[in-house]
């Protein structure tokens, strides 16, 4: 693997880990495997009778209390993958195992947070969080108590009687996280959960998520297309490539924990980001759409220049 592809501006290899970080990863890998993906393939039939391979031969596993990010260009099958993991779609071949047992069909032990919030608009915030507990047969009083604890955790206890349409995007997503966590899932699947939020709210939510993850016994699989988000959050980043979706590399993020936003200028962060950029936007390879060669005609007066 050519780690020096970006030239000599930085000497740090993204794979180089400080002893503390290396020790963390050793401990992480000693923890039991929660989610195991084996030869996962998903082929979709096309309208013309052909086939499109969205994912091909995916293999990876996630350890208990790990926070793994899945990163890839658009069309790499990120969403297909998370739907397969959640049981909302069935693989063409291969399997998903949770705690060593095959996971088929949707189940509350694989909680999911969607990009589009998907709160139930007819339920109050508290009742949204209670939903999974009630479906599992818990008594209303007890479910209500638990829901309030989870709302406390995401800082929304005040809004327990509000309806989703009264909340901002960030608040809605916090409710959705509380709702998924209330079921005590073995793994929390998050499909670009902060993608629809503005930059500032997004940064707050990332910090918030790390806070929750530190305090709650939960394993998180987080899909994103944002490189900085992936590095800031993840223990390991699974990089996919598109057409068909395949594992390109599993990167161990060498940025030490606890993470904070100031680390985005640290050498480890920059080295990892450079590597991700190489993988996601390969330089030499001519991409399918040569952006530089757009045939733009000049439509302003001569001398009316902006740069």
């Amino acid at each position, binding site marked *: 693997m050519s780690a020096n592809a970006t030239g000599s501006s930085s000497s740090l290899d993204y794979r180089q880990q400080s002893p503390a970080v290396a020790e963390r990863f050793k401990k992480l890998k000693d923890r039991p495997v929660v989610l195991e993906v084996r030869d996962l393939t998903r082929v979709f039939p096309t309208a013309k009778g052909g086939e499109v391979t969205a994912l091909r031969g995916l293999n990876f596993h996630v350890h208990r209390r790990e926070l793994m990010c899945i990163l890839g260009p658009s069309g790499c099958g990120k969403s297909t993958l998370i739907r397969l993991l959640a049981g909302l779609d069935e693989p063409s071949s291969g399997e998903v195992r949770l705690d060593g047992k095959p996971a088929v069909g949707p189940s509350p032990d694989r909680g999911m947070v*969607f990009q589009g919030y998907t709160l139930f608009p007819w*339920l109050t915030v508290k009742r949204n969080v209670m939903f999974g507990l009630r479906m599992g047969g818990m008594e209303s009083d007890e479910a209500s108590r638990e829901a309030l604890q989870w709302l406390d955790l995401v800082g929304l206890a005040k809004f327990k009687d509000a309806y989703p349409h009264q909340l901002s995007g960030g608040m809605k997503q916090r409710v959705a996280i509380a709702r998924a966590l209330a079921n005590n899932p073995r793994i929390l699947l998050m499909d670009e959960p902060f993608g629809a939020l503005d930059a500032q709210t997004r940064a707050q939510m990332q910090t918030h998520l790390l806070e929750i993850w530190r305090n709650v016994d939960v394993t998180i699989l987080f899909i994103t297309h944002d490189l900085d988000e992936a590095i800031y959050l993840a223990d390991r980043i699974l990089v996919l490539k598109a057409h068909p979706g395949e594992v390109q590399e599993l990167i161990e993020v060498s940025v030490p924990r606890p993470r904070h936003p100031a680390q985005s200028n640290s050498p480890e962060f920059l080295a990892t980001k450079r590597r991700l950029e190489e993988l996601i936007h390969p330089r030499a390879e001519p991409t399918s759409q040569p952006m530089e060669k757009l045939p733009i005609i000049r439509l302003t007066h001569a001398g009316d220049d902006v740069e």
Partner: protein
Amino acid sequence: MPRSRWFAIGKEPPPRVRLVLTFLSFLLPVALWALISYVPWIWHPLIRVNDPGTVAWFTPGLLVERAVFAEENAKVVATPDARVATGERANPVFLPPPHAVARALWTAFATKPVLKGDTWLHESLALSIRTIFWGFVISSLLGVPLGILCGAYPPFARLVEPAIDFVRYMPAPAFGALAVAVLGIFSAPKIAIIVVGTFFQQVLVIANTVRRHDTALIEAAQTLGARRRQLLLHVIVPGCLVELYNDQRILLGWAWTYLIVAEVVGVSSGITFFINQQAKYRNFDNVYAAIILIGIIGLVTDQGLAFLGRRIFPWQTRQPSRLRAFLALLGRQGGSNA
């Protein structure tokens, strides 16, 4: 309001303007009606004879076409000892002026039935409302669950909807004779016509509404552990409750349409009987009064249901009922005046 505001797409005017427009919506047709009724040189195609003069067949109060009136007078002028008929321009008897209808609205309730067996207006109305109520309740008890079933589970839709689509095209009144043969001549066949008229549309409308349900919410519920029946009862039904409620409001309007045909089946009864009877006596002011009453009942029911809907569904933000908006506005203005 500046001119550009009228044609700004999707932009609601301010509340005060909205209220004025709502009033105008009723006021303009009434104003047009008043214009035609009270301004003698607008329309008024007939002449009401005051003094018949020497025209043999004219009598005071007779309505004749203007051309005929002029022709007769021309003939009369040619003869000796002539006295021309006089009269004033009038509208046909089927267009009573607004004040006559307004008066009729008042007096219709107070007027004793002409014949024995005729009914008071309020009795006719009560009977009609009862017919609608039972027709709609029976139709809904069958149609709503079936519609939800079809909307939620495609195999049911495949089984049920083709046949319903077929029957839907048969006009409900076509079943009139059959209904009378089976159910007798009184209320039962009328209720049956309303059920037939409403039910088939209802199943399809409700099924379509349920089908439009947000699949993302169903998937979210599945990842939270909801299973088949739970999905139906806790996600699909509550998720489209607001739309179902609004569908029911629209369907209730259709039920009123079928009422008019239903009520002539078997023994004619209810508001339709009243209207036909009054038309027979050429009391067109009473006819208009009755038709307007149906409109008022419909509007009040619908806006009442919309108002109620806002109470039942506190999470819905769209389309406040007009009644509520109106009350809110009155409240606000009362508040600012005080």
